[in-house]
């Protein structure tokens, strides 16, 4: 049986096709001129260029972090195309009919229909193709309730004051190496603004697609929830199969004011490379939410199944009194994938609470690390944290690591951390076999049970998709 465990994995990556589309790309390499060019191409206000140049100059003085538990050859930052956009795109899209049909087809193939009649019921989608946003659906309907949902380039044109007020406030330009790089060259992303006392009438979603084999994707998402508002946001991503590695260095910033709540869910399925570790996306992402107001809440849910390397720590800075941070994560690594992921919960305000549930599954030769920080500041009276990170190992060559940092400076705080490691036991599979359930089904059931705490937090459609995704990813791993 153990041989068949290993053979269950090799489900081909079905999003690995490329779209043959003429692209308007700038030459490879990074310099001040390139930063200026990107800013000019997007016709940005002056403060933006200033922001980018400051970030670029900061980036030059920084070093790539060496502490993550991942290995990769040095990245040649001069060999990356920092801007790539489909050429045929008209300046401003009146309706979806004007979008290049090849592009619509691409998204159709990915299961994200953009055309109005077919689109997912009650989910507004912003579709991002390489460096630009292609289309945003349901914009008008959202505008009726005052919600702004558009690409960040569009926001820079139409709401520059809002962007200027919040951009870089949660993740400063010099936060880390990849954040600085992103701040200098980011091309597009989504911008969401939920006005006061508004419950966003539908779920918002962004779909990211890397198409160009030489380009990196540097998107930037900014979500601002004014006091009393709430929003649910979903993010999905895929990329074609290339032998080379592409860099994806994104930033997501969330700001929640008094009584606001933001739910941010990610299903990450970038191309992970082949079984020998050739190709795949380097997913180096900085995500952070600021609970600025009292009683605010930010919840991160992530299902990480793709990417050759994942390096990401969706974090919550709990400044407002009684604010709540949550992190639910399933990270699956297979073949040669490496993941160093987790969260940071920084408790600043009084009675702040955080919950961390992390489930890591590592199969074949992959490496899966949970790295988390729970920090209770001296003024966080009555702060409370509960962390649980469980790992499951499939096959004896994969590894699971946990690096939980706990820093407490207040005696009224209560911090609990629990972790465990296990495997799918022969006896469990035997038990299923007795009841006529094949090993494949048994494994998929066990894993879906293992991840249940997290999947329960995903919006319905996503949860079903995530379950299926994990089953596919792990096909032929167990036996």
């Amino acid at each position, binding site marked *: 049986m153990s041989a068949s465990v290993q053979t269950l994995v090799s489900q081909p990556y079905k999003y690995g096709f490329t779209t043959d589309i003429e692209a308007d790309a700038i030459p490879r390499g990074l310099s001040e001129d390139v930063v200026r060019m990107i800013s000019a191409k997007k016709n940005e206000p002056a403060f933006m260029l200033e922001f980018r140049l400051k970030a670029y100059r900061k980036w030059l003085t920084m070093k790539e972090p060496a502490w993550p538990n991942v290995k990769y050859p040095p990245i040649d930052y001069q060999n990356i195309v920092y801007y790539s956009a489909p050429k045929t795109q008209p300046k401003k899209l009146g309706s979806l009919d004007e979008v290049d049909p090849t592009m619509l087809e691409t998204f159709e193939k990915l299961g994200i229909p953009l055309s109005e009649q077919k689109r997912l019921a009650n989910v507004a989608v912003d579709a991002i193709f390489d460096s630009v946003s292609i289309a945003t659906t349901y914009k008008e309907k959202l505008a009726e309730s005052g919600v702004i949902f558009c690409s960040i380039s569009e926001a820079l044109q139409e709401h520059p004051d809002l962007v200027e007020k919040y951009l870089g406030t949660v993740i400063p330009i010099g936060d880390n190496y990849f954040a600085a790089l992103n701040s200098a060259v980011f091309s597009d992303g989504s911008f969401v603004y939920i006005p006061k006392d508004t419950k966003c009438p539908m779920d918002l979603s962004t779909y990211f697609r890397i198409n160009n084999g030489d380009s990196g994707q540097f998107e930037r998402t900014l979500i601002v929830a004014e006091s009393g508002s709430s929003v649910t946001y979903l993010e999905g991503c895929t990329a074609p199969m290339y032998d080379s590695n592409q860099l994806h260095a994104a930033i997501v910033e969330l700001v929640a004011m008094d009584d606001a709540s933001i739910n941010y869910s990610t299903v990450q399925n970038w191309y992970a490379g082949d079984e020998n570790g050739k190709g795949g996306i380097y997913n180096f992402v900085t995500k952070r939410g600021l609970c600025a107001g009292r009683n605010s809440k930010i919840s991160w849910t992530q299902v990480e199944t793709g990417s050759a390397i994942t390096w990401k720590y969706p974090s919550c800075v709990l400044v407002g009194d009684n604010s709540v941070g949550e992190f639910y994560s399933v990270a699956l690594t297979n073949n040669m994938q490496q993941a160093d992921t987790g969260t940071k919960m920084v408790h600043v305000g009084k009675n702040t609470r955080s919950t961390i549930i992390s489930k890591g599954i590592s199969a074949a030769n992959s490496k899966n690390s949970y790295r988390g920080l729970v920090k209770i500041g001296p003024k966080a009276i009555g702060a409370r944290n509960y962390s649980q990170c469980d790992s499951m190992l499939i096959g*004896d060559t994969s*590894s699971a690591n946990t*690096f939980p940092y*706990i*820093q*407490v400076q207040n*005696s009224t705080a209560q*911090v*609990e951390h629990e972790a465990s490691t296990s495997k799918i036991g022969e006896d469990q599979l035997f038990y299923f076999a007795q009841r006529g359930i094949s090993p494949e089904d048994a494994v998929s059931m066990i894993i879906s049970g293992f991840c249940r705490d997290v999947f329960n937090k995903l919006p319905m459609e996503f949860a079903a998709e995530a379950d299926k995704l994990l089953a596919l990813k792990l096909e032929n791993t167990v036996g």
Partner: protein
Amino acid sequence: MTSSVSEVSVLGTANQRDAYLKGLAQTVQAAVPENLGLEEVRSRAASFLNEQTFPSTRQEDWRFTDLSAMLAIDFATAGEFSVTEADIAELRLPETAGAQVVVVNGRVNRELSQLGGLPEGAVVGSLGDRSELQSQLSDRLTQASGSHEVFTALNTVGFQDAVVVWLPRNLVVETPLQIIYLSQAGEKPLVAQPRCLVVAESGSALTLVEDFWGDSTAAHFTNAVTELWLDANAQVSHSRIEREGAGTFHIGKTVVTQARDSQYIGVAAGFGAKLARHNWEIYQTGEQTTTKIYGLGAISATQHADTHSLVALSHPHGMVEQEHKAIVDGKAHSVFNGRMAVAQKAQLTNASQLNRNLLLSDTARVDTKPQLEIVADNVKCAHGATVSQLQSDEIFYLQSRGISAPQAQRLLIYAFAMEILEKIPVETLRSRLAEAIVQWT
């Protein structure tokens, strides 16, 4: 250059730390007696040390323990000290009568040591008296994994004497062995480097108590290294008590190398020192070993206590149980980093780790990192960590039974500490430490 000006003004620049370590190494090297031999291991350690720098908080291993206060102190090595029975009488345990070694500032004191109660065959004493063991020693002394670490290397290049404990095959020593390490202050701040080697050959058994003690508030630096080798089936129970003086920087290393079927039970309790760091490393070199380690720290005022433990499993069927507790009061700062590394070969490992911290004041601080690194798939590993103050409902419960709130608090702290202290196998030591906890609260 403008940049160098600003760098120099900060205490502990890279250059300063380099120079400090080199100076310290020269100081301790100059005090090495000639008759000890071991030139080869010393020169190897010296060349390793030459490439090292004095740790700063920029290194992950020292992130929460700042040693820069040491940089301002010029430590000298200690010569002979006259110590009388009165100085150590209180520390002698009745259970260990006839099995006591007294070490003063890193040198074995032959007059005060009492070794009459040991069975025949057991070798216990100063390295200087054991020239016949030289050839065997070189296979063990300084050979443990983890010796390539800056303070261990510093000890290796400069220890002035070492306590050697060598048990032949199948020798079971009934009397617990006590080693008293006394830190005596001189006119100048002193550096002492106690060294201990314990070899338990296959089938032998030993109960060992290491007691680090000092009562001076003067600046002092203790850099201790203890290596324990447990051959197949050997059993060692080890208690390490640290009660150094309030001005002392105590950096200690305990390395345990366990062969198949061996059993190591260790208890480390730390109460004293201005800054204490204990690196506790256990390496498994054979199947089916049992390791149980328990730690307790009780600190207050501006004390700093740091325990870094590593259990490295590389063979099947290992069993590890670890529990580390800290009670932190005043402005004290407690650090725990517990690493368990389970290699691919270490299938069927059963490991658990628990770290519990009790914060008694608003200015106390705890940094903890229980760390699991697992490559084997057929293992059971769990760890947990908690940080909190005393539970108000527990205090209320005791109050409802007529116990005053302060008394209830003392009772709960005592119970918290005793869960670790009761693992100490020597009765008198256990009750003395329990008494110390009562005094402390």
